[in-house]
């Protein structure tokens, strides 16, 4: 553990060099004494060198894509091309104010317009909003659109969203936020939507069905046509959680297989960086008849150029962001899509699927994979049930041991319907060599478990810190450093 920046502080040290105040006005003349803060905020006092050393030191304690493989299922930790960063950090992108006159931001608006269109094309949707800043906010917007659709028809009773029990946590949480009730549908033995059960569950209160496709087991929901029919039959809408859209790129267009609304995770599928937990971008696409509900403003084009389009304000669900969403992030996705083109996009989808199947094929003799009888899409869910039962070694232990070997752990204990789940997503940017080494590491661990299960409980051993006690973190809550002076 590094000492905190607060402990490195020294009274009077300076890390800033700002201009001298050259207007002749005293603070006391413009801020009455009763409004003056009584005691300073005790921010640390450091030199620029102190600050650089401190945060560079911290940076060295992270795993990150450019350090090593990051097979985090559901998260699509693909490589973030460097050109994205360079382009997005240009002054002409970074230093635009959202209220500049439109004629001064034509370039920015064009980028947004083209990105809206490209996302629509790739997904087979009619229109796209770039406003939501994360997947979960995309879900919220999508659900608001579903709500607006039903409201517009006066179907106020349509309050139920159905989703499989394998759904990501944000799905039910977003439903709550959007004022929907959630019904969970048990997945069938193949890990997919149980169509007959769905048929039973659906009724006139059904507002829509929320599905991740490929689902969170990495399997394509091949009964999608039937599912959509069932939902549409009660005038429900089909929502696709696009977190797994990488698998479908150039192969399947969600808008053409029955989905009415979907969100994209640009920070997954379209190579914008995760930033240690954001900022991402959760754009939302809809079919034609839902376009009028999209948030304001949309970016449109007329003879005078590009503009912020509020023309559908009356039907729109309104705004979910102070301005236009994470523009800086959207620019990165724009660059990525432009560099790939149609063939590149398809190639991403294909190689993501091949990489995942290769791993599944090579690991299935060592770990249980409930659905290894099927080809997976971009990811698959192995599990540690054998290891748990035979040797008392949990998936958590396996995950921690992987850290020792230079890998980030897969997503674990998700989806909830697979016990001891180990969800592995390689992405297309990893090479066969990397996959082969990862396979060896997984096999090694399987052997270690057989020979010395006990030691696994104490992994990791070579990481910047040893296994972290997160129970203590809750019980003895310490969420801020106690600064003394």
């Amino acid at each position, binding site marked *: 553990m590094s000492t905190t920046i607060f402990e490195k502080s020294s009274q009077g040290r300076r890390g800033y060099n700002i201009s001298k105040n050259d207007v002749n006005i005293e603070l006391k003349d413009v801020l009455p004494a009763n409004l003056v803060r009584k005691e300073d905020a005790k921010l*640390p006092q450091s030199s620029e060198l102190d600050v650089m050393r401190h945060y560079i030191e911290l940076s060295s304690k992270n795993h990150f894509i450019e350090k090593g493989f990051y097979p985090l299922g559901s998260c699509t930790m693909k490589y973030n091309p460097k050109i994205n960063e360079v382009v997005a950090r240009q002054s002409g992108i970074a230093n635009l104010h959202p209220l500049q006159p439109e004629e001064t931001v034509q370039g920015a608006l064009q980028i947004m317009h083209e990105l809206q269109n490209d996302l629509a094309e790739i997904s087979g949707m009619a229109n796209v909003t770039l406003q939501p800043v994360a997947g979960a906010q995309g879900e919220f917007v999508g659900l608001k659109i579903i709500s607006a659709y039903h409201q517009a028809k006066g179907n106020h009773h349509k309050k139920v969203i159905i989703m499989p029990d394998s759904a990501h946590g944000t799905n039910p949480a977003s439903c709550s936020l959007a004022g929907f009730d959630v019904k969970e549908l048990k997945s069938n033995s193949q890990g997919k939507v149980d169509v007959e059960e769905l048929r039973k569950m659906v009724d006139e209160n059904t507002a829509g069905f929320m599905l991740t496709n490929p689902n969170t087991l990495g399997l394509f929901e091949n009964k*999608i046509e039937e599912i959509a029919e069932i939902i549409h039959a009660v005038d429900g809408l089909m929502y696709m959680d696009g977190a797994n859209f990488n698998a479908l790129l150039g192969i399947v267009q969600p808008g053409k297989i029955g989905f009415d609304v979907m969100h994209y995770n640009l920070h997954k599928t379209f190579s914008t960086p995760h930033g240690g*937990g954001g900022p991402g971008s959760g754009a939302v696409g809809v079919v034609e008849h839902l376009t009028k509900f999209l948030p304001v403003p949309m970016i449109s084009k007329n003879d005078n150029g590009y503009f912020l389009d509020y023309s559908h304000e009356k039907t729109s669900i309104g705004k979910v962001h102070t301005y236009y969403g994470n523009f800086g992030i959207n620019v990165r996705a724009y660059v990525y899509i432009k560099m790939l083109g149609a063939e590149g996009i398809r190639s991403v989808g294909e190689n993501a699927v091949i*990489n995942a199947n290769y791993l599944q094929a090579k690991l299935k003799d060592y770990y249980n994979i409930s659905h290894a009888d099927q080809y997976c899409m971009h990811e698959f869910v192995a599990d540690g049930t054998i290891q748990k039962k035979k040797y008392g070694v949990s998936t958590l232990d396996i995950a921690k041991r992987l850290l020792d070997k230079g890998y980030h752990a897969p997503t674990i204990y998700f989806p909830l319907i697979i016990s001891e789940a180990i969800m592995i997503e390689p992405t297309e940017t990893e090479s066969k060599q990397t996959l082969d080494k990862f396979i060896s590491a997984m096999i090694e661990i399987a052997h270690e478990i057989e020979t010395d299960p006990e030691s696994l409980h104490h992994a990791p051993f070579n990481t910047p810190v040893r296994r972290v006690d997160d129970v203590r973190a809750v019980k003895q809550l310490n969420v801020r450093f106690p*600064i003394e002076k």
Partner: protein
Amino acid sequence: MPYISTTEQERQEMLREIGVSSFKELIANIPEKFVMKDKLNLEPAFSEQQISRKVFQLTNTNKCTQASDSYLGAGVYDHFIPAAVDTIVSRPEFYTAYTPYQAEVSQGTLQFIYEYQTMICELTGMEIANASMYDGASAAAEAILMAIRSTRKNKALIASTINPNFKNVIERYTEGLGIELEFINSVNGVMDIKDLEAKVNDDIACVLVQSPNFFGNIEDMFATEKLTHQTKKGLFIASTDPIALAITNSPAEYNADIVIGEGQALGNNINYGGPLFGFFATKLAMARTMPGRLVGETLDEAGNKAYSLTLQAREQHIRRVKATSNICSNQSLCTLAATVYMALMGREGIKEVATQSITKAHYLAQEITKIEGFELAYPQQTFFKEFVVKTPIPAEEIIEKALNHNIYAGVDMKIFGYDNQLMIAVTEKKTKADLDRFLAVLKEVI
């Protein structure tokens, strides 16, 4: 194909190992008619050089604020950002990492968040701050939802002097949940305390007031607090500007229960309005009803200090329908910029930024009112770095003409319903010479 590491030969090898002869077999499961026959209708692939060039040309048509003199604010502010901030933020160690779920290999991210939480606590005077919300607007909405949750009441009073975009987003986040929003009138550019007094009662979950408010004016937070806390359980939510906090009353001084705001001003570029980030702080007693991620200090197996995510039981991945929020990815990297910024500025620097912003804003305001036809819209109020002036001609015209001088004169308040009003933001970046030149242009264009 760019960014695909597998070579054609390796691809064939892998297909063989999987046991199929072609990619098609892998997706045989997808109904034939759903598999695309045609190529996507996208522009031909750009090379790295082509896309750089295209965007360079597009953005050259953008007149960015670096190349101009901008007085635009309205929640997004152009404070100076030291070069060291970007140097840190652009390290792949930080920006290509995922959410720090695996604590042992994420101490870098976890520790800076812990430091960020601490700094936000210092600025706000609160006891606990989360790892960020999407923006100030959604933070405001989530604060209201939290108040509703923890008081089990369903009415929120909101000062109508808050940022209108916050208002929009709050409405989006609260509609359909049986929540009632009531707005407190404004008078002279601030909330009408009398109206608050009239509307406040034991049914309310909270009162939300922004100070400095949308017009830049400082609200009477002490009076608000008194009225709010006279109710049964009613919570006082303060929305504020982190730079203003350096020199104006801390929310702890006026006993706010929840403090939120837009954090962009702390070391983040304006980025055409996004990414932004919302900060969110409250009292320790309410920790378990908070939305958003939290990092806590703990120990590792060897007994050394370490950090990890904590109180996750509030969150969507565990609590699902009952989570305190649906937020998952937040605006982490923006808070890294904020953390580095605050570390560089430190105790003294941040006060200097605030002091220069307020004094320069007042210099400009004072001089503008000397120009025939201009007057302060709210001369009775104390403002921080932003203020509204009444203009002798439509603000739109002033903006247009000033643009010929490469000046963004400010926000046309017409879009918020006020004719002939211009809202002007001033940060420490302005020099007296900039301000004097702006004044000369204003004189000229009217």
